[in-house]
């Protein structure tokens, strides 16, 4: 099967709707088919990977922990909109330190998250075969 480039675009915050958790489920399923998968976070979607989420009070599963497993699934391209972070008073240091182990570099841990401008994100999107928006 030929590999296609899939991008999952996340534009809504973690809880309140099912979009974020459903997106993550689909991403994990796609990973099983060994496609080239990347994720993008913009608008309120940037909240999905903010560090220190606590769900006890709302009685929901804290699936933000699952983002740490993405490296194991060979998903290591997480693009975050610089403008969306800034509009919300956030910076890269507010995000979870998501990493992956680089098989080609003696399993060294490397960051998976990359903050990019909307123009850069646009260019990355135009390289994709499939772009799914959540």
């Amino acid at each position, binding site marked *: 099967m030929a590999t296609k480039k899939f991008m999952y675009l996340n534009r809504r915050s973690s809880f309140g709707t099912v979009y974020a958790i459903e997106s993550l489920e689909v991403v*994990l399923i796609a990973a*099983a088919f060994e496609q080239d998968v990347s994720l993008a976070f913009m608008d309120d979607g940037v909240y999905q990977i903010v560090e220190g989420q606590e769900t006890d009070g709302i009685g929901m599963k804290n*699936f933000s*922990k*699952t983002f*740490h*497993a993405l490296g*194991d*699934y060979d998903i290591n391209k997480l693009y975050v909109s610089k403008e969306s972070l800034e509009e919300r008073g956030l910076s890269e240091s507010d995000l979870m330190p998501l990493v992956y182990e680089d098989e080609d570099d003696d399993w060294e841990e490397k960051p998976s998250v990359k903050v990019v401008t909307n123009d850069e994100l646009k260019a990355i999107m135009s390289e994709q075969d499939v772009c799914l928006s959540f």
Partner: protein
Amino acid sequence: MAQICGAEVDEEGFLVDLKDWNEDICKQMAQDDDVDLTDEHWDVINFLREYFEEYQIAPAVRVLTKAIAKRMGKDKGNSKYLYSLFPYGPGKQGCRFAGLPKPTGCI
């Protein structure tokens, strides 16, 4: 709905409420599947429970194999070994014994 040791399970035998899990349920599930639980089984079951606690998902077999290889060595981190322990699949059967949901993407 079917029950094992008083805990509800779904039509495929997975626990409905993951908090119900205990070792007796695990042993009963194994007995029903004609599996004799050994220390090697428990190593994998405990690993699956720790993985779920940390990441909130049941790992795909590929990911489980890789993670076990890293933790316990290559002689255990391969699908032949894991299938010898869990003939119905380390993902499907192993996760069920460990009280985890069915792995995402597992058909």
